[in-house]
């Protein structure tokens, strides 16, 4: 579908740059109830333009993630629509309890944006990688957890989150110059996965920046005569189980997140609810901390490359 967003341009800015430097400005103009908060991460997140345009609608609490969520909840209680922006690792873990109490338990519709999710912070090292955020946050009742596939989908997710009026966590993966999945726009609804490619024998269910890898793997498998579908599971919670092909010979989940309790676990949980003949292969970050390196090095360490996913599935099919 035609989109008001230019996907190629947006990808140059990365997921968070696209969402906050472009989409947010338009959304804030249309809705004066939107306020933005950050814990000293506004410039890296791409919020400088928003701060300049709407200085009285931006609140910086300094390096204090727990206070960040509490202040956002106070604002939400008085009718404002808070968008909170900080590093995914600290938002999801340092202030996990505040997210649980104020968003999950009290239901305040705060939009929590975790930038640098997965390995996006590269050489910052393990203290800054966010490979647990999906896992910890989806355990919270009433929480919606979203991981958009590309910069354009990030903008769509932010737009929908504002009118959704429930607590939402959006994780922003990859970096500037991120791959484009939706060249010409997309139909986007929270909780409704997108099927990007049809097929039957193998189903690849991916989320976030690794949807791009899933598409490459599907292409390669197709050339081997393996009919492969690809699902962009942008919303991990609530989980769109009806898109899971229980008749596939193999389902592979692909996520820039620990294989424990993330997308793969969500699919496992769904598959366990009925009879199926499917082999589930879960590709994700292994249950160990990483050797620090650049983005490609980190993904390779955990087998999160098109080549490895392809060859593993081929072996399984033989």
């Amino acid at each position, binding site marked *: 579908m035609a989109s008001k967003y230019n996907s190629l341009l947006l990808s140059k800015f990365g997921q968070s740059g696209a969402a906050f430097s472009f989409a947010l400005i338009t959304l804030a103009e249309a809705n004066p109830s939107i*306020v933005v908060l950050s814990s000293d991460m506004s410039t890296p997140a791409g919020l400088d333009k928003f701060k300049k345009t709407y200085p*009285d*609608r931006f*609140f910086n*609490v*300094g390096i*204090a993630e*727990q*206070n960040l*969520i*509490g*202040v*956002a*909840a*106070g*604002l*939400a*209680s*008085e*009718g*404002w629509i808070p968008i909170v922006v900080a590093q995914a690792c600290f938002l999801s873990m340092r202030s996990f*309890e*505040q997210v649980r*109490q*104020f968003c999950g*338990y*009290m239901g305040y519709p705060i939009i929590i944006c975790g930038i640098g999710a997965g390995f996006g912070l590269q050489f910052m090292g393990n203290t800054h990688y966010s490979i647990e955020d999906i896992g910890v946050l989806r355990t919270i009742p009433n929480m919606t957890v979203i991981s958009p596939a590309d910069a354009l989908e990030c903008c769509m997710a932010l737009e929908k989150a504002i009118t959704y009026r429930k607590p939402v966590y959006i994780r922003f993966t990859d970096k500037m110059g991120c791959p484009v999945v939706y060249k010409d726009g997309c139909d986007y609804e929270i909780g409704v996965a997108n099927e990007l490619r049809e097929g039957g024998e193998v189903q690849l269910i991916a989320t976030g920046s690794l949807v791009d890898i899933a598409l490459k793997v599907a292409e390669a498998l197709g050339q081997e005569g393996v009919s492969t579908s690809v699902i962009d599971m942008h919303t991990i919670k609530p989980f769109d189980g009806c898109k899971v092909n229980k008749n596939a010979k193999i389902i592979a989940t692909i996520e820039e997140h620990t294989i424990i309790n993330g997308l793969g676990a969500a699919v496992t949980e769904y598959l366990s609810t009925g009879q199926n003949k499917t082999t589930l292969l879960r590709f994700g970050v292994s249950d160990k901390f990483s050797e620090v390196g650049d983005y490609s090095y980190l993904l390779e360490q955990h087998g999160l490359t098109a080549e490895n996913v392809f060859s593993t599935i081929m072996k399984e099919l033989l």
Partner: protein
Amino acid sequence: MELDRTKKEAKQIRRDIIDMTHAVGTHGAHIGGSLSAVEIFATLYFNILKYDKANMTAEDRDRFILSKGHAAMTLYATLHRVGIVTDEDIKTFKGNGSKFANHPYMYPEKGVEFSTGSLGHGLSLGVGTALALRHKGNTSSKVYVYQGDGECDEGSVWEAAMSASHYCLDNLILIVDRNKIQLDGFTEDIMSQKTICERFRSFGWDVINIDGHDIDDIYNKITSGLANQKGPLAFIANTTKGKGVSFIENRYEWHIGTLNDKLYNQAIEELENEANQ
């Protein structure tokens, strides 16, 4: 001012807390920290806080955040005396499915603004609420946060304290229930809070000490503080945990306590003797 009435209401609030604790039997209740808050709640709700009994969510109300959520009995009892929480509501305290639980459940129509109980959260909520009110041009409503002294162990309290003075929140009032006892013992043995006044001052707050059981002192100091408020304002209320019941006063074992019939009768007798003096 109606301080004589306030004093009578305080006695009844204390009675209600003891009745509620007795009613829940061996489940026990946070009686110590509830009793230390009585006079302050009575003074606030019968003289200072702005609210409309017919509409507890009115925009022009003051906001009251019970950060020390385990003093929920004091809140319920006070709202009961004001006429917002009913007799039937109070009878459901700590019952299965009750909205009147050990810690407050968000029930704005009944004057319970937030679900609290996890210590260290309320002041952040207060900062956010104060910012929100200012942002929408509500210059008449104030935000009150009631917090424990042990609660000041939590780092999140100090994050909020910093932001309150950074944003010059002259519509934010903190009251610290300085009863010097926390669950494991006396605060000075567990994690000293003796510099609490200096600490809030150094974080940019104005700080006023009050006698937390002297209604005249509470009323005079709070109203005077409000009249001169230029930024975030903290009242350190010197209180006694378990105030009003001799076998509970200053006993950390009574952070959570159970009242069997014998202890209940003894407590009631003490209250009645006090009332008759």
